[in-house]
């Protein structure tokens, strides 16, 4: 009942735009910048930032990934999962995580009809994938010895406002002795140990964390009580050795990623209420003027993951938000609120400092400015 009520509220907020599955990427995006109300609102109602930039703000659609990189990523994934995931099994055997007898593999897309452009058939196919995933997970939860060790492309759900948002982790892994699965995230990023790009690792970890959250929800439904122990906040990243198709396995602790994601999900009902309270009755987010009203929180990292970063930057610059000159300035200049006010305080112009915090900030700014002027 609650779900359907939320569903209709969400549909009304979405306006003329059709629902989109945010996927693991979309959900992890919210956890990256939890203070951004606009991003949370769009994710809750099922509009991706790319669609918002293109269809609501009318900005030209931009490719996020090069076809060369996409082709390489697909090739790497195929190399791991083809031939009944022989290379993945070998990878886990080499790491001592699977024995020679543990080689049961289930490829969920093969258990369902192929995806079709016909919406009815597509829904049926996706439904079948979901049903097959549940069947396989249930087998493991029941302790069946036939439960697969690796499940490729399972279709799982993360519940947001009572509505399940589908995600498809690359794979799940469990040895026979394990009580449940853990997610595998495959990325074609080059694995350079300590030199691996932190932004790449961060994004892969957050996507794996979405898998942990989905697995925990599934475990709860299967009657596990100690879900945190059954599905620990651990994920496996499979990256590529630079310049080759050889895979490297790294287990990552995802405690903070999972915690931030769970917090974002828990806050969603309150976010929906806040969002509706913020907007005029009957307003929907497909209107750029309405979307503009929803506050953002522009950060340095926004460009990494959000298609609306450019738009938010423009608005932040127009509003003179200190974040436009850096995250450090955003914290330091909080008492001033805007860059213009901070400049006034620094130059001793405009309205005199109104609060004790502004007085302290003005003193610091003036001292630092005099030092700067003297130095240059």
């Amino acid at each position: 009942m609650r779900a359907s009520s939320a569903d209709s509220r969400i549909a009304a907020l979405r306006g003329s735009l059709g629902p989109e599955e945010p996927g693991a990427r979309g959900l992890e995006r919210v956890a990256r910048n939890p203070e951004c109300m606009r991003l949370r609102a769009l994710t809750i109602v099922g509009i991706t930032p790319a669609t918002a930039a293109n269809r609501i703000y009318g900005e030209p659609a931009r490719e996020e990934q090069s076809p060369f990189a996409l082709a390489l990523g697909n090739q790497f994934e195929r190399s791991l999962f083809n031939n009944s995931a022989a290379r993945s099994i070998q990878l886990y055997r080499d790491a001592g995580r699977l024995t020679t007898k543990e080689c049961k593999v289930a490829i969920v897309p093969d258990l369902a009809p192929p995806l079709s452009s016909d919406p009815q058939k597509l829904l049926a196919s996706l439904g079948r994938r979901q049903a097959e995933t549940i069947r396989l997970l249930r087998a493991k939860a029941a302790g069946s010895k036939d439960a697969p060790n690796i499940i490729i492309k399972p279709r799982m759900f993360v519940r947001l406002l009572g509505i399940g948002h589908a995600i498809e982790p690359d794979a799940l892994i469990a040895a026979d002795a394990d009580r449940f699965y853990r997610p595998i995230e495959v990325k074609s990023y080059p694995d350079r140990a300590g030199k691996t790009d932190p932004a790449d690792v961060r994004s892969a970890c957050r996507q794996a964390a979405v898998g942990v959250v989905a697995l925990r929800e599934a475990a709860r439904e299967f009657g596990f009580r100690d879900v945190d122990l059954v599905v620990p906040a651990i994920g496996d990243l499979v990256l590529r050795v630079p310049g080759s198709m050889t895979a490297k396995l790294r287990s990552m602790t995802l405690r903070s990623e999972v915690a931030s994601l769970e917090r974002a999900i828990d806050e969603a009902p309150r976010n929906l209420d806040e969002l509706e309270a913020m907007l005029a009755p009957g307003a929907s987010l497909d209107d750029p003027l309405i979307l503009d009203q929803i506050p953002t929180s522009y950060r340095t990292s926004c460009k990494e993951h959000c298609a609306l970063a450019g738009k938010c930057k423009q608005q932040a610059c127009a509003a003179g938000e200190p974040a436009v000159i850096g995250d450090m300035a955003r914290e330091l200049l909080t008492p001033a609120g805007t860059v213009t006010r901070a400049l006034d305080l620094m130059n001793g112009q405009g309205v005199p400092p109104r609060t004790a915090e502004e007085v302290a900030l003005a003193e610091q700014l003036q001292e630092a400015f005099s030092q700067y002027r003297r130095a240059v």
Partner: protein
Amino acid sequence: MAVDLETIARLVAFKKGKAVPMASDLQIVIQPDALVLCCIALAGEDTTIHGVACGPIGKPAEFLSVPDPRFRDDQYDLFAWIGKRIERYYAECRRCGTHPQIWVSSEAAVKHLDVLSDRLRYNRERADIRRLGELLTYATERFPIGGQQALHAATSALRQHYATGQQAAEDEHLGALLTWIDPPRRTNILAAVALAEQTPMGVKTDPEFDRTKLDPLVRAYNEARRTGASAAQLKGRAQIIHDALMTVVSQIYDATQAAVEILRTRWPRRLLTAPQLQNREAQEFENFMQSRDNGFFLPTWDKPKAAAFKLTEREIALQTIEAAICMGDRVALAKARLAGRILEGSIENPRRMWVRPRVFESTFDLVSAQRVLRIRPRDELFLLSDPRQKALVRTVEREGRKTRVQLEIIKGKNAVGLPSPGSLQVFTPYVPDWNSLTKARIQLAERLAVQPWTHAENGAIPQRVPSQLRKPTDLLAAVEALR
């Protein structure tokens, strides 16, 4: 959290719509014969070079590209082409007793060279490719070391000298950074920067360009190759790819040259310690090349002992360059003053007391108005204007908004003498010691002569040996006394 100088500079730049200086002196050494190297990789294939522009600073570039870097032979020929130029340049530097210097556009380009050097130096198929990997390793291994002059990213070098009115991460786009430094007239700076950001300045082409232009061209070339097209046809298709890539690469090359030119012409004052930086780099280069000549192997991962040496080298280099810049650059000094890393104030109560025959104790108070101060009793500080004098902090007391620090001169009592009352003096915890690395290496070699059990293979935990020393009654005071 105290307001730092960088935030102030960014505020000023935002208001002006133009980058503002963040240094008083040129903080790097620009070699007159430095090499500018701009490579473009195929997206996703980090160990490839699709197109490259290479040339000395202030000179036009030589270009080369391959139609598809996934064809190994073509790719190796391109590597060999680069290798030949770098080998020639290194040999010339060695002959002149100087060091090489390579300029790239951004830190992304540094990472690209790092991946390449890691990959190529173990190549088993061609010796010239392996040699290129080794030569590049010199530059990429030096990059994280403070004060190094072997490899410069244009963005990092400019950021050392300018502050913009945007986020620090956005300064990594060379085009945007140059726009902030030389903004176009009668155009909104933010609009101009947004436009500049459309041009790729890293090591990859724009995904949109890949989809609409490069991918179809590469596919067509591969198809022609697969169907056995004539050499002339293949050459024609390769030329189209070359032209498409060169428009991208030449823009990066020109921007990198522009960055070097800005630093060369607008920063006439060099750091006082520039010759020491050059000497150290030349020594490191000669050591590295000598090691290659002697046939030593470059490992993928350092063993514990080598890692300890390299870590120490990094720490000392950072400390030395920070101290050197602080002594020479007014902005760096102001930064240190604001952050409380140096002590500045007026001298009060200078006194010289007789202790015993020929032994005097020289003390004075320094009253500082610094808001933040990171000074503790027993710290040893050097007089910035004459580092021969060293003083020991005896007490630190707050007096309203001021801080009174009592100091005792422990070195340079006669050579420098007591500071005169009322004079403004600056004390710093570090002064550049260009021989400290050698001393540290000797000390490390002694201490690590026997590998500690923590790093030994199958090293057993040694048995506890009860200490023969008497346990101090006040443990905290004993620890403090060690400082």
